[in-house]
Every structure is written in C-alpha cells, then in structure tokens.
C-alpha cells in the first residue's frame, strides 16, 4: 500500500502523528491522530514491540506475533484503511507490503455514566446511557447475560461513518422485525448521523411524523426490559438516547417507577392519572371555548356567572383569548427549556405569576382562561415525550372548538382516534393492547398486574408482534 498517498491525503491534519522506523532493512510507517489515540498506547502496544522485534518483517507477522494491541488486523482496501484511521485507529504500513496493519489505540473522552436528567426515577437503577456506543452496549450486556443477546453493527452516514448497533434477544424478538429494521438502516443514505434521532426518522412508520412510533430511552434498565419483551433496540454512537421498536402509545403512559416503586394499585392509579392529564391537556381549553361560545347552558349557573363577570371588558373573543394564553404558555416553555438552569426559576415566576396576574389585572385576559391554560399546561408534562404533539393537538382542538363547537371537538377526537388506530409499527398496532384488544398484554397496559403475573407474560407480550398482522 502506498504510504505517500496516505500521507498526502492526511497531511493537512494538524493532529496527524507520523513516525518512520527502519527495521530489518525495511521502512515501517506508523500513523495515528493525536486527538483520537492515546500516545502511551501507541508507544507501548505498537512502537515498542516493533523496535524490539526480531522476527522477519511482514504485515501478517506483525498482527500474529508482534503488536500487543488486542484489536489488530490487516486491511488491503485503501478506503477502509482511511475510514479506520479517521475512527481513531493506528495504521502501520510496512514497505513493499500490500496490506496495512490497523491497531485499535482509540481513546476518546466520554461523559461518565450518570443519572439521565430527563428520566429520573425515585427508586431503581440510576445509570444512564452516554455518548459512547461501547459503554452503552456494556450497560445492556451486564443486564442481559445471555448468549442470545445479539448486537449487529452497521456504519451509517457518508461523512460521519457513525456506528449503529441493532440489539435484540434472539428467540424473543421477531426475526422479521429485526430483518426489517436492519434493512431500513442499511438503506439510510445521508451525509451525517449525529444523533439517534437522525436514524429514528428513517425507522418511523408514521409518515406524517405527527405521532412518535420509535421509542427513545436514556436508561439501560428500561431498554433491557424492552428487549426482554421482544423489542429491538438501536444504539447510535454519539447519542445517549437508545431507540426501541416497535413502539406503542401506552409505553408513554408507563414509567420505570411503576415497576420499582409503586404497587400494582398505585402504578395503575398513576397511569390513569397520566391519561386523564393528557385528555385535560389536549381537550380542556377547547371544551372551555366551545362551552363559552356555543353551549354555555352546560356550565353550572354559579360558574357561568363567575365566568361572565370575569370576561367582562376583555377585548378578545373567547377563542382568541384562549389562543393567546396557550401561545404565551408555549413561549414560556420554549424559553424555559433553553434558558440556563439558574434562570429557569426566575422565568417561571415571571411567567406564571407576574405575567399571568398582570394580564388578568390589566384586563387583557380573563382569570378562568389563564387557569384553564395553566391546568392544561401542567397536564402536558404528564407524558413528557409527547409534550409538543399534545401542544399542537391542543391548539388544533381550540380552533375546532371555537369555530364548530362541541360536535366539532367530538369529530376531531374521532378523527384523531381513527388515524391513531390505523397506524402500525412493524406489524404492531400503535394503540395495542387497547385496540385491537390483546388480552395477555392488558396485564401491563393501563392497569398493571403484579410482577409475578407480568413475568408469566414475558414472550407473550406484543402477541401481535411478528404475526405480521396487517389486519
């Protein structure tokens, strides 16, 4: 292999390190990137053994007898050698040899394994994934000590060459789903994959992208439990979020604490509350607007009087008033999400108390509308993964409620439900096990049974999975 071509290709790299050794009458060139490799490792595992070598010199003998690196191989394809070099490997060229020797001396600094900030649990494991695919695989492997735990790796992204691993438990996961996912990953054509969300777009079966059909989790215990249920996990190098497929709506309602902390009864109550919160978050502002505009008789008379007295002098119609409240809330939420943590509390106080109170006192907004908006806003966070979706649906329903009334809301709900029940993710209906009803899976749907019952359910979970039901 031509050392000069290689040198020419990477000569502009400021962190390129190159050492030429003259051994047994042949030149040996060692290349590595200082920012990706450990100099100590290169010295100890590559350079020193080469200098101390007494064997006849060839690429194969280097791999077989000389170099200490645990991961060491020869490669004749120049492009592949370049890819490996960019991935942090050390490349050794031996004069007049066709093959180059690739030695893994990569040391890249990663964030430590820590509790993920977005999915904390009161009790239970606190480990979270980080940006290193190997660490993430380790976190899964140490929980799934079975030979059936498989991880197939692929490289995605023309310029980023990002490693993607498809993990599953053979015999538990559907072969058809695994094959389908790997085929989809293989067909990804993109310049760069910087996060798992880039891959999720290609795996998402919902082409409207309104509903999320790919699970995303930061905790290895949660992903391990999904794998035990027969799902498939996709780990992307550089991302602390691991994807799981197939994904159903009810997974959003479930929380790790349901299993670690709560009893079946309290866990079930928690899930019911989350669902009610979701319904309140999406529909309450719309129903309020519809009642105020079209069906005020439904409101209890005392409450109606309160509403009427509080909206007197408000310059907006109920519809516009509610839209203003909702948009204000969404702006506050966006600002809060991007603001430094230390300023977040101040913003909450300014937004929730000062702004809300001032708007009511100034006669711009009515107190009931602010209260309804706030209640709905809190409800949005009961299922944090879908906050933006619910916020979008809330706005749509407010418009429908304000223009068509309660029948419009009913039709809107029916349309959304009709759409949602029609979505299938790799053969698994999105609303299963509610619709279609899957009796075995209902043990851990909205109402949760005891862990003993759930263990009996393992393997039977997602009984539609793999049945290739497009019914």
């Amino acid at each position, binding site marked *: 292999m031509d050392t000069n071509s290689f040198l020419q290709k990477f000569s502009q790299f400021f962190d390129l390190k190159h050492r030429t050794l003259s051994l047994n009458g042949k030149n040996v060139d060692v290349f590595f990137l200082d920012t990706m490799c450990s100099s100590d490792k290169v010295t100890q595992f590559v350079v020193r053994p080469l200098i101390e070598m007494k064997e006849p010199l060839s690429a194969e003998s280097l791999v077989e007898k000389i170099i200490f690196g645990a991961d060491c191989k020869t490669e004749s394809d120049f492009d592949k050698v370049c890819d490996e070099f960019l991935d942090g490997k050390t490349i050794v060229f031996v004069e007049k040899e066709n093959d180059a020797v690739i030695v893994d001396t990569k040391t890249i600094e990663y964030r430590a394994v820590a509790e993920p900030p977005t999915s904390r649990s009161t009790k239970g494991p606190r480990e979270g994934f980080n940006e290193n695919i190997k660490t993430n695989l380790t976190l899964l492997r140490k929980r799934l000590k079975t030979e059936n735990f498989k991880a197939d790796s692929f490289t995605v992204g023309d310029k980023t060459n990002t490693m993607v691993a498809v993990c599953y438990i053979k015999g538990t996961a559907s072969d058809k789903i695994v094959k389908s996912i790997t085929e989809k990953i293989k067909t990804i054509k993109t310049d760069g994959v910087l996060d798992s969300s880039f891959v999720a777009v290609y795996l998402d079966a919902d082409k409207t992208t309104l509903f999320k059909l790919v699970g995303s989790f930061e905790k290895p215990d949660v992903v391990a439990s999904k794998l035990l249920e027969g799902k498939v996990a996709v780990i992307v190098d550089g991302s602390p979020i691991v994807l799981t497929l197939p994904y159903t709506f009810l997974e959003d309602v479930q929380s790790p604490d349901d299993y670690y902390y709560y009893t079946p009864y309290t866990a079930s109550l928690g899930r019911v509350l989350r669902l009610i919160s979701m319904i309140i978050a999406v529909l309450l502002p719309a129903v309020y607007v519809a009642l105020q505009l079209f069906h005020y008789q439904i409101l*209890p008379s005392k*409450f109606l009087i309160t509403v009427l007295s509080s909206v007197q002098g408000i310059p907006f119609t109920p519809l516009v008033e509610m839209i203003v409240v909702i948009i204000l809330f969404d702006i506050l939420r966006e600002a809060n999400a991007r603001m430094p943590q230390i300023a977040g509390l101040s913003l909450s106080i300014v937004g929730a108390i000062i702004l809300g109170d001032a708007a009511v006192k100034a006669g711009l907004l009515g107190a009931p509308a602010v209260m309804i908006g706030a209640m709905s806003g809190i409800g949005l966070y009961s299922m944090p993964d879908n906050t933006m979706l619910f916020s979008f649906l809330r706005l749509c329903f407010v418009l429908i409620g304000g223009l068509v009334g309660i029948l419009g809301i009913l*039709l809107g709900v029916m349309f959304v439900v009709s759409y949602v029940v029609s979505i299938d993710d790799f053969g698994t*209906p999105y609303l299963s096990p509610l619709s279609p009803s899957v009796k075995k899976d209902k043990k851990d749907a909205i109402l949760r049974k005891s862990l003993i019952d759930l263990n009996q359910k393992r393997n039977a979970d997602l009984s539609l999975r793999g049945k290739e*039901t497009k*019914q």
Partner: protein
Amino acid sequence: MNNCVKQTQLCLLIVIVMSGGKYLSLPGILASFAGRDSWISMSLLFAVDFLCFVAILFAMKNCGGKSFYEILCMTVSTPVAKVLMTLYALFFTLRITGGLVDTVDLMSTSLSVVTNWAAFILPVLLVIGYNVAKGLKNTVRVTQIFFVFILISVLLIILLSVKYTDLTELNPFLSEGFKPALDGSVNMSFWFSDCLFLFFCFGNVSVGKRFFTPFIVSFLVGAVLTVMLEITFLCLFGELAPYAQNALVKVSGFNIAGTSYGRLDWIFVIIWLSSIILKSTLYFWAATVALDKAFSINSNKGHVICFAAVALLVLVAPLILPVQQMISDLFILGAGKYVTMFLQYAVPILSPLLVFAANKKHGGEKSIRRVSEVKEQ
C-alpha cells in the same frame, strides 16, 4: 381496505349499532302508534330481529369463506344478486341519511347550535370517509376505544333518571288490544334490523371457540339497553311521550333535575353521539361494499367512486328533499316498508338455505377460506 375482524370486535360493534340512533326520534314516533305499549312494539321487533340475526349467524358460520354476494350469485343468479346489492346499498344510504338528519335536529333543538346541514355533514363525512377507506378493521378498532365511554354515558343517562320514573305509566298493558303494538312494530320496522351489515362480513370474521354465544350476548345487551331507555322514556313522559322528540335529551334532562349543575347531562349526550357516527360509518362501509358488488368494482378508484356516490346522496338528499317526511310517507306509512321488510327479514331468514344451496352447488368443496382460517387480529 382491510375488512378482517375478530368476533369480539364485531360483538362490541353490534351493541353500539343496535342502540346508536334509536334514541333520537324513534321512541316518540313509536309512542304515537302504540302509546304506552310502544316498548312491547320495540321488544317484538327485537324478537323478530333476533330470529333473523341467528339465521344470519348460521349462514355466516357455514358460508365456507364465500362472500354473501358469491352465495347469491351461486344460488339466485348474478343479475338478481346485483339487484339485491343495489337495494341494500340504497337501504343503508337511507338509514344513514335519516339518522344523520335526526342528529342535526337533536343538535339544533337541544344543544343550542344553529346547524347548517352542509356544515354538519361535511366534517362528519371526513371522519366517515377516512374510516371507510381504511376498511372495517379501522371502524371496529375505533369502536373498541369508544365503547366503554358510550356504554357508561347511556347507562348514566338511564340510571340517573330512574328515580323520576313512574312505572305505573306502563299500566294497563295492551289496554286497546295487541293491534296498536303490532301496528307500531310493522310501521317502525324500517329503523330496525341493524345487523344486516353482517352479510358483508361473511368470510372476514375470525371466531373463537364459541361462535353463537358472544354474538347472542351482544345482541341481547344491545336490545336490553334500547328497551330500557324506551321504558324509562315512557315512564317519565307517560301520555306525553308521542310529543317528546329527541328521546335521549328529554330523558337526560331528568339527570340534573333539582340541581343547579347546568346541563352537564349534555356531555353524556355528546359522547353518545359518537355511536351514531360509528353506526353511520359502518352503514357507509356496507353501502360502499354493496355498490362495489353491484357494479363489479375491484379497483381502489372504483371504491372511491362508490363511496363518493353514497356520500353525494347523503349530502344532497336532505338539501333538496324532505327526507324525514319521505321516509315517514314511504317506509312507515307507505308500501315501501314491504320492500325493506323483504331485505330486512325475508333475505336473512332465507340466508341459511342460500348458503346450503351454494355449498351443495360447490360440491362441498371448501376451496375458499373458511371463516376460522381468517387470521386473528
């Protein structure tokens, strides 16, 4: 269109279809024929419906995977089969139109909404169209989600009004003999036979270990719910029952009697309205399939045209015709009821014989999918 469904899903649909739409103007009109005995008229109609229902089930069980249209073609000739399919399509279209026109009445008289027909029907057609395009599978899945809410709403409306009922309003039974009750049954038969859509499910239902029991239970639940509301209605309004339109809203009014909670009962009514949309969706699907068969359409484009034809009829008919009056004149008081009775009762009763004849003609060969072979959902 994916039309393969499970038996349990179909059972839920039967309950919804039987009760949906029967709480609008039907109890009042029935009371005008049979007075306080109108619940007997209703029970009679359900009894006849039950016989037809069992006959349809029997035919469905033994159809050997053949569609009802195929059975008709094999037994009564293709032209007759096509005529029957066209008649069924018209029958379902009329039922949809009548039900939706009554719903607009309910909306405009009770929920204080001045409802323009086109403004009402277009969004309804959007929901229905989406479900019809996705097939029966989608409709039954939506029904699974709404079923509990609808059932709870109806039960609450009935139970919260029970304390204001006076059962003596039902006495004396059959004071004017059996004729008024029988007249009520004969004249109002058009609004019954809700399970005719099962004809279009032949070969598409996966069944469990028991075939008849779940279906029969669901039929009985639907019938009991409907008769319960009729009795509650009669016991609340007594002699005034014939003048009380939109029965459900009238009954629900008693839910909040003596309170200052506002018309919270309307929330139940609104939830119950979803059963009418589901029923209309199902009938739309059945009408579209019937038209597909009548005109031998197999392409997607053809399905869309069939749906558009039914939708256009439903959209335009109430704008240019007095649909309620027409249904009353033709199918309640007129001779049209005998045509619909043929479709509603004669064909279902004969259906097991048709299936046996078709199977015999087919040489007992079960080359087409058996009911039980349809994949479970």
